[in-house]
């Protein structure tokens, strides 16, 4: 089962991705993240701003995430993704520095297939762009377990459909800890650990990408 995976070339490829920071004039932090050709997400962040009395928390900032699909009204899938994103962001944002404020993160899906990992990456870049105090960065990586047991990183829509299980991880930048994991489909413990290890390897590439894109922005000044 696990032996097949190491055969091909021992390498998995991440699709080309690109990002653009600061393209909207109104939000405090804004970023677009495009993965491959299709999935792309635009993130806009306001914070820390005044919170409604009913929603304010006395000791930290109240983080709210809104995910808007391209067609139709937000449904159950969007709500569950919003919860996952909110929990990941709350783990890294130092909300204790801004009590009784609100931080609102709005994500707009720009293309048909939206991978959760794309939303995670866009959210992290928007947090970086807004200058909120963060304890760590995070990135999202999706792995697909193919029917023959091999691990595929960053699957396309078709590969996702053929896969036996899809696992998405949010990996933090300090010691590559796992901040959030969600799976669809069934897999064994070993397979999950392999996917996790592969995802942690991919996370390094993505963090280097963050660093390069931010450096490009700051190099002018």
């Amino acid at each position, binding site marked *: 089962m696990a032996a097949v995976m190491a055969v091909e070339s021992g390498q998995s490829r991440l699709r080309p991705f690109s990002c653009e920071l600061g393209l909207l004039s109104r939000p*405090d932090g804004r970023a677009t993240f495009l993965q491959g050709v299709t999935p792309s997400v635009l993130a806009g962040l306001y914070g*820390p701003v005044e919170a409604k009395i009913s929603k304010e928390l006395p000791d930290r900032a109240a983080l709210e995430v809104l995910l808007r699909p391209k067609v139709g009204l937000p449904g159950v899938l969007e709500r569950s993704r919003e919860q996952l994103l909110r929990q990941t962001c709350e783990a890294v944002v130092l909300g204790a520095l*801004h009590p009784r404020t609100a931080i609102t993160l709005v994500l707009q899906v720009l293309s048909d297939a939206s991978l959760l990992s794309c939303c995670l990456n866009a959210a992290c870049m928007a947090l970086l762009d807004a*200058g909120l105090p963060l304890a760590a960065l995070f990135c999202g990586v999706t792995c697909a377990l193919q029917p023959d047991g091999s691990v595929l990183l960053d699957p396309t829509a078709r590969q996702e459909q053929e896969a036996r299980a899809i696992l998405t991880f949010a990996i933090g930048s300090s010691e590559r800890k796992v901040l959030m994991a969600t799976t669809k489909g069934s897999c064994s413990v070993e397979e999950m650990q392999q996917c996790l290890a592969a995802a942690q390897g991919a996370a390094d590439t993505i963090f280097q990408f963050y660093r390069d894109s931010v450096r490009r922005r700051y190099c002018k*000044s």
Partner: protein
Amino acid sequence: MRRRAARRPRPWWGSGAARDLLLLPAQYDEDAEGDGCGSARAERRRGAAVRAGAAALRAGLLVTKCGLLRHRPAGGGAFWVDSQQKRYVPVKGDHVIGIVTAKAGDVFRLDVGGSEPASLSYLAFEGATKRNRPNVQVGDLIYGQFLVANKDMEPEMVCIDSSGKSSGMGIIGQDGFLFKVSLGLIRKLLAPKCEIIQELSQLYPFELVLGMNGRIWVKAKTVQQTLIIVNILEACEYMSAEQRKQALAKLSGNR
């Protein structure tokens, strides 16, 4: 050119040599030091202060914002992370421009661009007494400094300094134009001997008030001149020095 930003706060963005070291959150400062800031390490041991952008943890320093590492050697040395940001967080002692949104009894409520409106007592103006109230309407602009600004309390502003003099603070005049830029540009403009302001002052005479919350108030003789200055200052964020010199040369040639 008359500059109304008379009193600059303690210059903690001073003239330290800019090391182009980009830091991202969750990087321990031990790493940054290893990249060749030998003298920095020595100063750290002497107890140099670490300011905005890093939090002190038991294990060392944790970088919390992304930006360039800056260092000021004078006065014990200080390190901070210079980041580009749009949203302002009130800090005690900062001079800001606020917009009056409401008058509630003895107190004015001002919008300073942060997460909460700041309060300003009517007695906090030079020469104000209970009988002699300042003439402040809703929608006026006020230049003041923060007396109280921490994360747990509502920020409070005053328009007099500790000796009771206004020293340039107070209600800003009726004409002129207010606009917003990023906080990084304000810090650049407030640095001593800022090139941009010197070059602009050779163009036309104008009055300028810079608020640390990103707001700038400009007044020149005519509307056209004011608009030109506004556009140049807004574009300064993304223009390099040569592009700016070219644009100014074109403008002064047109005059």
